[in-house]
């Protein structure tokens, strides 16, 4: 039998497999995904169904207890985590798209264009981007709702969600652009790129065929680390009342609800502790996977 060829991707995968923390993260994330995707259906509980028992502590009937309207917190947490993950993944995807394009073009073009593009990144980095998010949401939401109502009425309720995808992606790409640019700068003058240029390959071909595959590893790593960052940002916005709207929930809005119920007379800890715990485990899992991938793709960790 022939030994399978040792490609960089294969070696990376083998390193990832031997990283205990990363594996624990992957398993944890798998469990969360499974629960989030199948849980609400299997449970058969409507997360928005009010009942006669508000503020019931955790019990056999309501594993995480109930909230102010008597809604089952377990079902709400799962659905909320689903929204949070959806926003995190889509926002990260948007940020990868912008960041990679920006970094590639800046590094490959070089010169004045590069300087201006990176200067823009520096300036954006130094500005409070929450203002941008607030303004874009405020400016476009009514238009978007109206537009969606005429095209696809079923989606009009999700207008805020689509805006969050776009806005969170649009404020999270700066690091990615810097990293990709740095990588491409170091690759740009390598002999194989020069050879391709001498052979008359157009810039778009070189970017796509030679540069992009060489930065894929690092893009995957930082995309993985962007997901928890976007989830955090969404929760932060939801906490301030700028994110997901009721009756829909994300982990951020659930935590905000829980925090608002904090009072010295009656401690309803479950409202805060369970959504917070779910958010913490999701972030933990994603971080461990991201760290594991970084070590796996780092050529210096070759042993």
């Amino acid at each position: 039998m022939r030994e399978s060829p040792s490609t960089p991707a294969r070696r990376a995968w083998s390193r990832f497999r031997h990283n205990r923390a990363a594996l624990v993260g992957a398993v944890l994330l798998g469990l969360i995904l499974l629960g989030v995707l199948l849980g609400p259906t299997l449970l058969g509980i409507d997360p928005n169904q009010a009942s006669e028992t508000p503020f019931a502590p955790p019990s056999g009937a309501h594993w995480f207890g109930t909230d102010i309207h008597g809604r089952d917190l377990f079902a709400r947490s799962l659905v909320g985590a689903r929204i949070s993950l959806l926003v995190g993944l889509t926002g990260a995807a948007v940020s990868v798209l912008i960041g990679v394009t920006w970094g590639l073009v800046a590094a490959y073009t070089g010169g004045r264009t590069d300087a201006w593009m990176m200067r823009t990144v520096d300036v954006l980095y130094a500005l409070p981007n929450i203002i941008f998010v607030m303004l874009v949401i405020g400016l476009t939401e009514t238009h978007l709702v109206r537009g969606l109502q005429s095209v696809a009425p079923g989606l009009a309720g999700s207008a805020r969600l689509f805006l969050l995808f776009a806005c969170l992606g649009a404020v999270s790409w700066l690091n990615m652009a810097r990293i990709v640019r740095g990588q491409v700068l170091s690759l740009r003058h390598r002999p194989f790129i020069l050879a391709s240029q001498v052979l008359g390959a157009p810039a778009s071909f070189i970017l796509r065929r030679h540069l992009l595959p060489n930065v894929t590893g690092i893009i995957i790593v930082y995309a993985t680390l962007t997901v928890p960052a976007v989830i955090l940002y969404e929760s932060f916005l939801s906490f301030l009342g700028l994110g997901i709207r009721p009756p829909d929930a994300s982990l951020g809005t659930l935590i905000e609800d829980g925090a608002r119920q904090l009072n010295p007379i009656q401690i309803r800890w479950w409202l805060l502790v369970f959504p917070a715990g779910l958010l913490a485990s999701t972030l933990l899992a994603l971080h461990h996977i991201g760290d594991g991938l970084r070590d796996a793709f780092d050529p210096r960790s070759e042993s």
Partner: protein
Amino acid sequence: MNLLRRLLLVPLLVWIVATLAFFLMRAAPGGPFDRERAPASKEVEAALKARYHLDESLGRQYLRFLAGLATGDLGPSFKYRHHSVNDILAQALPVSLTLGWLAFGTALGIGIPAGFLGAVYRGRWPDWGGSFLVLAGVCIPTFVLAPLLVLFFSLKLGWLPVALWGSLPQVLLPTFALGLYFAARVSRLLREGLSETLRAPFIMTARAKGLGEFQLLLRHALRPSLLPVISYCGPMLADLLTGSFVIERVFQIPGTGAFFVNSFFSRDYPMMVGLVIVYSALLLLLNLATDLAYRWLDPRVRHA
């Protein structure tokens, strides 16, 4: 030279951002007096608009705004009728900035020793402590930590006050809640940096020449390892300043956070634009200061 150019660029950028905010706010649907105590008659609305010059053309309003800006006057608040934006900022900004600086101090005060010990005692118990800190910081965001701290220390144990701002016990929880995440990031950066420095040839040389461990670590190894921390300070300060909104909300601290969110929702144009101006200027200057500190610490950049 380059620094001077960047310093001169700050007012220009602030002006661009302020202009953007000025027009974007006015383009947002709804107006500042929509939620006037109903029924707001046409006359009342017209009178209000006339009083705040909102009946003028956009161009004239902008010129009026620029003229005010030139004299340092940010205009009246539409929501808090008897206060000017300057008054409100003069009251709220020091509170937010104090919270920000205290949290900054906490982040460095906890993060640097933790990262230092983690790198020096790599793989032993101080390193474990540091790893735990990083883990906690990474997966317990500020807005989760803050209510949890209130739940435990204020409600359960009753040691510290639940909210408000001013006395030392009131300052402790918010500062810690805001600073922990950044302490974790700082400790991680320093640990990685110092671990790498300790493997560098010049450290081996210093050791071979018989330099004491204490001198070696503090004088030779620490300084270059602090560079990643310094360059992180810029984004950290930006995150601290906006991150404090959540903390202010949880602890009901009278800072700028509430004004930020409210002025947007109530279309309080001058308040919002004023906040945008102050915050962008602050952040741009702080980033500049970060770069200066970096230059001062890194001889390669200093002598380049």
